């Protein structure tokens, strides 16, 4: 069903999209954080996490995502999520992630909003 997380990154015009596939747990979260911090180091201040390939996230994964959001707030960057399953979207709302990061149903809408901000 779901193996460990696989990541890919698409850099485009000052924005970077991180695509995930698999379980966002401790290992998966660390992978995302590593990738996000690399992108920040490269100067990207607007990141989009496309979770179309992810059906499951646990509390450790969420805590790591919150750390990434905090880091983005510190540098006054922007982070958004798109293509979440209904369950993950509801979880993000309950956990407060939606307060600090935009959640969009599709990638085009998320990119448009990140570019506008």
């Amino acid at each position, binding site marked *: *069903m*779901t*193996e*460990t997380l696989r990541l890919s990154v698409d850099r485009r015009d000052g924005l970077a999209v991180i695509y995930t596939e698999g*379980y966002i*747990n*401790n*290992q998966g979260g660390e992978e995302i954080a590593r990738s996000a911090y690399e992108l920040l180091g490269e100067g990207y201040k607007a990141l989009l996490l496309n979770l179309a390939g992810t*059906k*499951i*996230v*646990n*509390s*450790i994964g*969420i*805590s790591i995502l*919150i750390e990434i959001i*905090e880091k983005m*707030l*510190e540098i006054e960057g922007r982070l958004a999520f798109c293509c979440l399953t209904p*369950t993950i979207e*509801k*979880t993000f709302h*309950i*956990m*407060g992630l939606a307060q*600090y990061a935009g959640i969009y149903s599709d990638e085009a809408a998320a990119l448009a909003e990140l570019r506008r901000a």
Partner: protein
Amino acid sequence: MASKSGSALAPPAWDEILALVGREAGERLLLQRLLEAWCAQREVAEAALYADGERGLERAAAVGVAFPEVLAGGRPANALALDVPGGVLVFRPSGPPPPAVEPLLVLLASALRQLRLERQLKRQRFQVNYRGVELEALYEVGLAIASTLNLEELAEVILLRAVSLLDARRGALYLLEKERYVLHGTIGGDAVAALAAFEAQAADAALLPGATHLLTVSITIEGQPRGLLVVADKESRDGVGPFPLADHRTLGLFANQAAIALENARLHRAALEKERLEREMELAAEIQSRLLPKQAPMLEGFAIAGWNRPARQVGGDYYDFLHLADGRLGLTVGDVSGKGVAAALLVSTLHSAVRLLLDRIEVGPALLARLNQHILESSAPNKFITLLLAELDPAAGVLRYVNAGHNPGLLLGRDGSLRTLGPGGLPLGLLPGSTYRSETLSMERGDLLCLYSDGVTECLSPADEEFSIEGLARVLLQTRELPLEEVIEAVDRAATDFSCGQPQGDDQTLVLLRRD
């Protein structure tokens, strides 16, 4: 935290520091700026401020060459350390040691405390929120009971929810199918594909190869096992470990919810399967009904009628009327051993074979021998067919017949005499190389021929007595001059009355031929 190497001597940016006070997520940046200000004031090029954290003293701000992220093995060599409330300031002085108390250090300590309080608040908020997620998970599985009847979708929802809810690194769901637990989903790695039910307890530890800490709960309905929900390796930021007792209770609660949902889905699937089979049976019944004559043939000087009622939707009885060369008429009644779909399929085979062979072979021993061979080759070893096949020459009033193990047909004479059409060989499909004998008889005006299946004569009374050939003959004798449809109705009524309305035990068939 990013350091400002080489900027330690830059003057403090007080306006920026002031702006950071109270800013959302600004605590760490405030600490960083205050540390930079302190370093600038004291001309310190390398410093790090550590705060009490989950992993010990964790670096919260740094200037210059980075000190380690966590002070796990004591304070760094060649560095001074100043204890501040809630942490420690480590630095490499470039001049004389600074005083232990000074305004910027007080500000640093205050910001450190604010950071610690913020972290505590965030942890508590996180835990409270996550309780909400747990409740939501249980609620959603409850909802799934009512909304998801697809077994595979439901199994996935249950597994995803259980694994994420318990912060498990891995998980698997097994459902009991024919005394075996069969894998229906796995997360985080491979799992054993199936195991015998009696092995479940002993094999727990081996279900997820490579996992260290397993927690397994049985999914049961009214005490009967239906599946296994397995999670493994509880995650934390430091790695994996065993599941605490609270998780055992949570998973048990989850399994109870899942059991009801899975049982609903299983029953739904069973109902769909039953519905599908019923549709197929209806279709089979319709196809079989088309094999029977739609109406009896018109033959001058003779009245002809046929009737069939299967005990189930499809049956193993068969009758047919066939127009043969020179105005002759073929009549046949057959009965396949057994009932239901298997019998119906063989009826279909027989129907086709009789029609095809009669084009080439006339009614007689050779035809029956050929049919016997055909049925032997195309049916199961324990299946056979009794068949009475007759050919009427209407001009001469002569009936030629072969009886392959079928119930003896009855010929009621106008004078009330009764003659039977006895066996002329074994049933079809019983033995290879069977031989058959044909007989002939004359039909006079008023003679009534009755071919029937044993479902008519062997229908039982509540006292287990058979309606019998005598019972059938009695009704025929009383009604033989009526229109044949009424004769059939009379036989049906008499047999039904005899059985006192008990369910029909076998297929029933009647073929009547009267010379008028």
